[in-house]
């Protein structure tokens, strides 16, 4: 900061000039049109964000308005880009898990699952059945937690404050469960290559079942509050619909696509981690408007509860992580008695395991759509490239087509129903 009175050239820096010179889509043809009273209309370019409570993070939108109608939207992203993909190239495979978990910070188990699944394909290691079931239980708990945050913050955007508090109350129960099983509430590093780091503690199952009893009742309450709220219905019903073909062309997957009536769900279509063992329904919408997007996610909470119940009932006995000592750490008690275990432990902790050269793309169904992890190995113990195809990043492209021609208030509701997580978008 310069002291007062100092002479500074008022000229803008080259960076600021370039930032301001971002060109908008051609909207000039709408200028000069006369309305019924003979007045001309002017377009207004509004900068929305990056710090705005309704953007769900640091998302900046350049919105061109004609009166109250949105004519053009340009998302500008990158404000929380932290170079996680670059960081990952500098770490051994098992040390990459905590950094990729921090991409999409509401669905950390899914990021770990996509990455571990990709590495497991490269190493060709089999995850034991118990490990797969424990993964499913945690993934679905995480899906509920992610949907709860989405529901709470979206309701907040629509002016319903109390539902946010209710949703966070239930999410807290899930975080308590995560804390009990892994020691951390968020970014738990619970999934490892070859399984999960530890078996669940005694008493955890009982606590999960207690939660499963509560959750559907609470979800009923959310539905009762929101579905009978005139304001919520007015703002969601019939606003900003987009058909399934356009969504597919834009690469949109997940609840947004299902809301438009396309029942595409990787858990059913291309099951991974034993999802084929469970019976569940795929909620779909009909017209693909904001209400369908809301209803599909709310219905998914019940299905997740259903999956967790089945996984707990059928939880097989056995190891929770692969017995392959080249990939997974030996159990603690073996270190005192077995020289071989000590050597494996030392090698894994210092260098990590080496992965045969090759490249794989491993897609899973995250709460927001297809989360794909591309890993390229050059044969060393560090990945040569880790890339996340984050659903939020791709889905954000649909915001323009959805909200163009609608009122600005509907754009807020659409952004909320899009459920973008900026940590995942910017990585």
């Amino acid at each position, binding site marked *: 900061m310069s002291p007062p009175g100092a002479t500074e050239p008022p000229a*803008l820096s080259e960076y600021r000039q370039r930032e301001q010179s971002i060109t908008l889509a051609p909207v000039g043809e709408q200028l000069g049109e006369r309305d019924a009273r003979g007045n001309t209309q002017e377009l207004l370019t509004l900068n929305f964000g990056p710090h705005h409570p309704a953007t769900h993070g640091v998302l900046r939108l350049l919105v061109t308005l004609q009166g109250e109608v949105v004519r053009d939207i340009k998302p500008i992203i990158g404000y929380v880009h932290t170079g996680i993909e*670059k960081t990952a190239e500098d770490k051994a495979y098992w040390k990459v898990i905590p950094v990729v978990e921090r991409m999409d910070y509401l669905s950390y188990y899914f990021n770990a699952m996509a990455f571990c699944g990709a590495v497991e*394909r490269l190493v060709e290691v089999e995850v034991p059945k118990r490990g797969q079931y424990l993964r499913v239980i945690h993934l679905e708990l995480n899906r509920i937690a992610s949907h709860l945050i989405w529901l709470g913050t979206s309701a907040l955007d629509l002016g319903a404050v109390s539902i946010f508090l209710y949703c966070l109350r239930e999410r807290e129960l899930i975080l308590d469960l995560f804390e009990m099983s892994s020691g951390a509430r968020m970014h738990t590093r619970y999934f490892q290559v070859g399984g999960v780091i530890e078996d669940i503690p005694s008493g955890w199952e009982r606590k999960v079942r207690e939660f499963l009893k509560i959750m559907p009742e609470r979800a009923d309450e959310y539905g009762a509050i929101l579905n009978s709220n005139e304001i919520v219905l007015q703002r969601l019903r019939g606003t900003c619909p987009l058909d399934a073909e356009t969504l597919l062309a834009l690469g949109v997957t997940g609840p947004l696509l299902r809301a438009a009536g396309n029942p595409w769900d990787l858990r059913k279509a291309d099951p991974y981690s034993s999802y084929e063992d469970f019976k569940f329904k795929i909620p779909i919408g009909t017209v693909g408007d904001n209400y369908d997007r809301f209803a599909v996610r709310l219905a998914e909470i019940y299905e997740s509860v259903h999956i967790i119940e089945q996984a707990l009932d059928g939880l097989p006995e056995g190891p929770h992580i692969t017995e392959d000592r080249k990939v997974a750490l030996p159990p603690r008690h073996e270190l005192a008695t077995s020289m071989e275990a000590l050597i494996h432990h030392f090698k894994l902790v210092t260098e990590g395991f080496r992965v045969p050269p090759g490249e794989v*793309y491993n897609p899973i169904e995250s709460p927001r759509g297809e989360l794909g992890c591309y890993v390229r190995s050059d044969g060393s113990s560090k990945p040569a490239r880790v890339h996340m195809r984050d659903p939020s*990043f*791709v889905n954000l492209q649909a915001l323009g087509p959805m909200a163009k021609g609608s009122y600005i208030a509907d754009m807020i509701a659409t952004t909320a129903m899009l459920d973008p997580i900026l940590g995942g978008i910017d990585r």
Partner: protein
Amino acid sequence: MPDATGLELLAQELREAEGEDAVLETTFFRGRGTLEIEPTHVRAVLERLRAAGYAFLASVHGVDYYPHEPRLGVHYELLDMGRVDRITVKLRVATDAPEVESVTADWPTADHQEREIYDMFGVVFRGHPDLRRILMPEDYEGHPQRRDFPVGGEPVVFTYNERDALGPM
């Protein structure tokens, strides 16, 4: 998934339609097929695959094959939702002329993803409607995901040194 034979048949069809040199190599690895194609044929090959059922472009990503030449790679992950079948199309370009034709006109989903590859690897997509940096600042120099791009060494901008770091605001 197409099995190894199915992949060869697909490659053969593409070679017949687009010329012998269109498909350089086929790899079948861990149950997934990859077609390595000549960069000039990218739009035509993707259109042929779309006609063969792979109608959803799941992901586009860049990769740096340093120290192997040609260094930069672009991968297109295609998905057939009817048969639940995936195939990867990849192409490689050299760092001195990293130009690929954009597929955004045919596949709108590639818009942001091509911008990301341009930003991170410096691959120029000809015909992209709005090829700007997407994650890094507009005035950033270099392409940080390249393997020879060093980590660290950049000044961190705080209020007290922003004038030195960014120039007059």
